[in-house]
């Protein structure tokens, strides 16, 4: 893997040398832009999927639009050749900087290659659309002001497709549904992608009219948006931290085994991915699994202990606590139905019981059997199989088995 990772900067250097003769009248533009791409790659913009978007995209987004006033009219600063040189030099430079910083070489190689793909697609499509799509000119022959916008939308759209599809290829070992999950997750990065590339195009277009003042025009809105992304990201992290903390209250109260909530959540989200659930559904499963035993905090209430309670009561109380937050309505519903059997006698399957509830029922039972009752993983699986007439959905049990096998939980060596 190291060898493959090291090939990336070597390939970059080779391509850069091949492209080397600079077209531009002023080569400083090319070197400068490449340096900014390299340094910009060190700053990470937080995204939903965890993809590594960086402000380098702003520079590349501006390249095909950058133009200046010359005696003969307005002239583009970068040819396609120069732009490609900027991208190759910049990404190679960024590889050197980030390797020196100590980034993981595999992630680094994958990230640089994805960037190279999306940048190249943007530049090529832009070049092609520029020649293919010409909007009607004004009565005095002046160029149509909307033309650059149309070109940009085409090129950026194509580049985003490259970005999303390459996110799927990042994990080529996975099965189809996991590839699909990666792609769906990458689609959620559209906000960060749009902001970065549009800020670049904004700078390119405004530079033509007002020179370096364009920096203010592009930077102010982008900085606002960047701040919003960071704020949102921090809030997401805080929320996750808080849910993890609250999930442990029944544990410190002595109502469940220490670590039960975390282990069940980790197992349940893996099972959800194994069953082919999308990123949103997996998130719901994870949250609900984390909070599934929260109804037990009511168990230090003397009245409740005196009157007795059932699993259904516990599930309902838990769902009432969580359901107080309207954003968690779905999670609350999953928690409310977690105790229900997946089918009743004579019925194929109860379609009303959400898949997430069925996953939690199985994973929670498995964790209680192994951590509390003291069964071995294989014995616990046997109980689950026995219970799969009504209680445990056999599909979920099968997925759990695959997950546990992958984790090596059974300690078995597979003979071939």
């Amino acid at each position, binding site marked *: 893997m190291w060898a493959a990772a090291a090939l990336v900067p070597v390939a970059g250097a080779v391509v850069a040398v091949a492209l080397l003769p600079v077209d531009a009248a002023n080569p400083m533009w090319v070197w400068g832009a490449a340096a900014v791409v390299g340094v910009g790659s060190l700053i990470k913009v937080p995204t939903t999927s965890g993809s590594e978007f960086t402000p380098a995209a702003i520079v590349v987004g501006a390249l095909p639009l950058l133009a200046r*006033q010359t005696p003969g009219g307005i002239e583009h600063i970068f040819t396609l050749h120069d732009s490609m040189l900027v991208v190759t030099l910049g990404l190679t430079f960024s590889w050197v900087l980030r390797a020196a910083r100590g980034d993981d070489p595999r992630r680094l190689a994958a990230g640089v290659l994805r960037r190279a793909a999306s940048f190249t697609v943007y530049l090529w499509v832009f070049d092609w659309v520029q020649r293919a799509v010409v909007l009607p000119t004004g009565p005095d022959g*002046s160029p149509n*002001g*909307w033309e*650059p*916008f149309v070109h*940009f939308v085409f090129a950026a759209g194509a580049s985003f497709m490259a970005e999303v599809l390459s996110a799927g290829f990042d994990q080529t070992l996975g099965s189809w549904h996991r590839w699909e999950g990666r792609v769906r997750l990458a689609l959620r990065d559209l*906000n*960060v992608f*749009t*902001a970065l590339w*549009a*800020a670049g195009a*904004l700078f390119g*277009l*405004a530079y*033509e*009219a*007002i020179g370096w*003042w*364009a920096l*203010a*025009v592009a930077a*102010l*809105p*982008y900085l*606002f*948006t960047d701040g*919003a*992304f960071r*704020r*949102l990201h921090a*809030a997401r992290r*805080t*929320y996750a*931290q*808080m849910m*993890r*903390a*609250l999930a*442990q*209250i029944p544990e*410190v*109260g002595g109502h469940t085994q220490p670590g039960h909530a975390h282990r069940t959540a980790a197992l349940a989200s893996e099972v959800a991915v194994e069953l082919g659930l999308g990123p949103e559904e997996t998130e719901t499963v994870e949250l609900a699994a984390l909070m599934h035993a929260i109804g037990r*905090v*009511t*168990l*230090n*209430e*003397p*009245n409740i202990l005196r009157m007795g309670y059932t699993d259904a009561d516990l599930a309902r*109380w838990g769902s*009432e*606590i*969580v359901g*107080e*937050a*309207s*954003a*968690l309505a779905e999670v609350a519903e999953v928690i409310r139905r977690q105790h229900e059997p997946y089918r009743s006698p004579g019925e194929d399957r109860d379609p009303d019981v959400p898949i997430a509830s069925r996953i939690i029922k199985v994973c929670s039972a498995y964790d209680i059997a192994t951590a509390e009752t003291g069964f071995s993983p294989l014995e616990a699986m046997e109980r689950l199989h026995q219970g799969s007439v009504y209680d445990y959905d056999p599909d979920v049990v099968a997925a759990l088995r695959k997950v546990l096998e992958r984790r090596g939980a059974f300690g078995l060596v597979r003979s071939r």
Partner: protein
Amino acid sequence: MRAPVRRFLVGSAYFLAGVGVLWLTYPGAFGVDLPLWLLFTAAYVVLSYQSVEVNDRLYASSSVMPVLTAGVAFALVSDRPGIDQSVVFAMTLMAALGPLVPEDLRLRRLFQPAANLGQLAVSAALAGLVIEAVVGDLSVSMVLETREAFRVAVAGSAGAATYSAVNFVLVRNAVVWTYGRRDLIPWSRMGMIVGSQTLMGVLGGLLGAVVVTARPAVVPLILFVYVMGHLSIIAYSRLREAHESTLRGFVKTLETRDLYTRGHTERVAYFSRLIGERLGFNGTQLEQMRWAALIHDVGKLAVPVELMQKRGPLDDDEYRRLRTATHLVDDLLSEVDFLRPMVDIASGCHPRLAGEDFGQVGHTHTTSPSLEQKVLAVADAFDAMTSNRSYRMASSQSRAFAALRRDTSPLFDPLVIDALEQALAEVGQTYGPPDYLTEVGVETGEAAHAHD
């Protein structure tokens, strides 16, 4: 004069001022490019609806930007010498359309839109005059020289500063005249608002220049960038709401079990805010107090059942066990980076520990309680004393204050107690039963025993 009458007078005065300004600036014909005007007006109206509260202090509203962009764009296009009245009118009319929120009109809330119309029209007209004065004589073709661009930036920022300063003064005065309260919008906010709007003005001015030099495509591009940030801000405030309501779910569970403590957390939060405002806490501190109040009793969820069953005050050993259980929850909550300062406040607010071993238990390792801890402790003890418990009756407000003052705990700072007493007097509220009910024969809890 009664408030509705004052409101009517202020509303109509502002409205008339707005209409007057429109009439004064009307040049006889519309005078500017109508499609462009409609485009900017649409952007302005949309942005006016979309202001989002980021937190207590910061409102992400950028509705001033389209007005200034339009002003600069029109001023650069017009080649009339001197101040072009049609530019000023175009800006004034645009600003006046902002407050026409359908929701307000449907509910027949007329005061707010009418006053806003007046105040925005006046602000925009003055901003228009400033812009015309700076760049009125400038006329550009395809490209701006550096000096021209500089003047455009100055025009935008000066226009925005005028707009927001005038607007601030008018809003503040309307509030003061109508409600007679001076503490609603402090003057200290003016600097921040005008500063951020001036920055927006630079952007708006330059944008106007780019638009008129035949590059309208910058408008959708800037909207792309802006809208993405805006959506994130909306998602962020939703998340914050979810965050808070999730915690509230836990608090509610806690309180529904015990009839006597129902609403306790909300009241403690309210009293902390009253004290905090009185002591001049800033937005961040007030926000912290709110969260600290919200979590100060969550630890009770982990209290062992035999302590929950106990009727009557706890003895020292039992109290220590109770604190151990709640500290386990405090430990959990302080794993959340955001909550750590609030957990510090909340875990140090329980007075029993303050006298004896404050500093060894809990998360604070200071030897004396912080002001925030004192505020929460006073709010907590005051509410506990003025509400009924299963084992005692509530005491009256004056007796509760007297008991708090008698207590020697360093948490019950006389300064904080005075602040609460004055704040309650100011809002005209009294808690607990009247004095004559508690004066004789009823055993009332002393401060240190009354917390819960």
